Every structure is written in C-alpha cells, then in structure tokens.
C-alpha cells in the first residue's frame, strides 16, 4: 500500500480539477477506517501498518487539497520528481509579485480592511486564472515547460495567500 498513488488512495483518477468537498468526505471516511484507536487490540505488525497507512493518507490529503501541490504531484507522476525548492526566473511575473508585496506592506501599515478584502479578491481571481491555464496545458507533454512555470506561479500565489490571511488575523486582533 505504501506506494499507492495519492489519487488511488481516495479511489480517484489523477486529475487537476477535483471536487474538494468530495475529497474531504473521502478523506474522513478513510481516516476513520485506519484510525489507530480502532486497532488498539491488534498485533504489533498490524498496528505499525495501520500507522503507516494513516500517515500516508494524511500526506496524500495534504498534497491533493492544495492546487500547487496537486499540480506538482501530477507533473511528477508523468515526468519524474520536480524539486520543491528551485530558483525561478520569470521576470514579468516576479515584477508583479514584487508590486503585490509592496501593496500588502502598505495595507499592513494602513490597516485598511476593505482594501485588504479587495486585494484578497484580486489574488483569488489570479489563482483561478492560473488554475484554468494549468488545466488546459498540463496533460500535453509538448507544453511541459509552460505547465511547470504555471505550477511555480501557483506556489508563489499560495504563499502570498497565506501572508494575506496572517495579516487579516493580525488586523483582527
């Protein structure tokens, strides 16, 4: 079971577009089935297997529920492992990222909540556009480089999204 594909763990076929609610339902059902508490009276070997199964299930869920991680996983399944940490040189995108971070810094100073909400909307729209673009090209091996570039952009935007949420929490306090 250890080498089972992340999608197969949830009886899903590899796909970028997935229903996250449905994934959550499948995850909770499987998680109950392999919950260590249910194997309290089992033998040591079985207990260990269940623990491994449970850990693998959590890993798979963490990867599949995040668009950039799911994208990286799909490309890795087909083309081999893609490193998590690389240096990207994608000038126009990076210039835009720098501008967005400057804006976020200003929002932090001004504590302007409506403006922060608008920023968040813009970020979400950009993430959706990236997801749409990725969906159109990832299965075409001739467009591998483009798919990787889009996946890297998704990683940046997800990180930015975390920072937006952190800032929201700080401003809420």
């Amino acid at each position, binding site marked *: 079971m250890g080498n089972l594909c992340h999608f197969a763990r949830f009886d899903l076929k590899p796909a970028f577009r997935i229903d996250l609610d449905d994934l959550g339902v499948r995850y909770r059902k499987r998680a109950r089935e392999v919950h260590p508490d249910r194997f309290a009276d089992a033998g040591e070997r079985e207990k260990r297997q269940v623990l491994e199964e449970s850990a693998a299930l959590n890993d798979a869920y963490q990867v599949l529920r995040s668009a950039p991680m799911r994208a990286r996983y799909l490309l890795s399944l087909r083309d081999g492992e893609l490193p998590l940490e690389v240096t*990207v040189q994608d000038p126009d995108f990076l210039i835009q990222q720098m501008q967005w971070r400057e804006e976020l810094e200003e929002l932090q100073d001004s504590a302007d909540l409506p403006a922060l909400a608008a920023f968040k909307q813009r970020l979400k729209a950009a993430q959706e556009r990236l997801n749409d673009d990725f969906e159109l090209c990832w299965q075409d091996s001739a467009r591998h480089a483009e798919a990787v570039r889009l996946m890297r952009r998704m990683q940046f935007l997800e990180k930015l999204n975390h920072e937006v949420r952190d800032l929201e929490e700080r401003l809420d306090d």
Partner: protein
Amino acid sequence: MAYSEKVIDHYENPRNVGKLDAEDPDVGTGMVGAPACGDVMRLQIKVNEQGIIEDAKFKTYGCGSAIASSSLATEWMKGKTLDEAETIKNTQLAEELALPPVKIHCSVLAEDAIKAAVRDYKQKKGLV
C-alpha cells in the same frame, strides 16, 4: 529558529536597499524567486566605464536569511569587476552569515540573482 548575529544585523540594517533605473544601459537587473517560500529578490548593479560595479541595490521580500543574503551580496559586489562578482558563491554567503542547512537555499537564491544581474548587463552591452 534562531538567526545568527550577522543575519540579524543585515536584517535590521540592510545595506543597499533600493532601486536603480532598469532602463539605464549601465544597469543590470536580476529578478529571481523561490516559489515554495514565496521569496522574491531583485538585485541590480551599475557598472562604470572601467567595468567596475560602482553601485548595487536590492529589494527582497522573504525571510531574514534571504534578506541578509542579498544585502551581503550587494556589499560584496561593489567595487568588483563583473568577472569577480560572478565568482561569489552561495557557500561563501552562507558561511559568512552562518546560515543553517534549511536556509542554504536563500544563499543560492542570492547567487542566482547576482548571475542574473550580470547576465542582464552583459546582454544589454552585447557581450554575450
């Protein structure tokens, strides 16, 4: 995680933060990013007629180690020729800043930014 004193010094008093005119023919700009951390780094150099880097500026959005690595990189590049600047290695930056293993990639990003800035300058001048 505890930062070294040198990282904290560069983080609190970053050297050479700012921007040079990217359209200036004597300026080379390197834009690099680390997607998993979300770090974005801009490193720029201004080269004089003798081929010496007379000014260097950076702007980095990222963790303390990434900011310190790029700050130190600009310090080291000033006064050097392009060829000398290109020999700056991430391992030297990491050693000087006493970066822990999990932060080595921040120094790699800074080295890549140096190379990107030098390459941009050389392309502008038709040297490559």
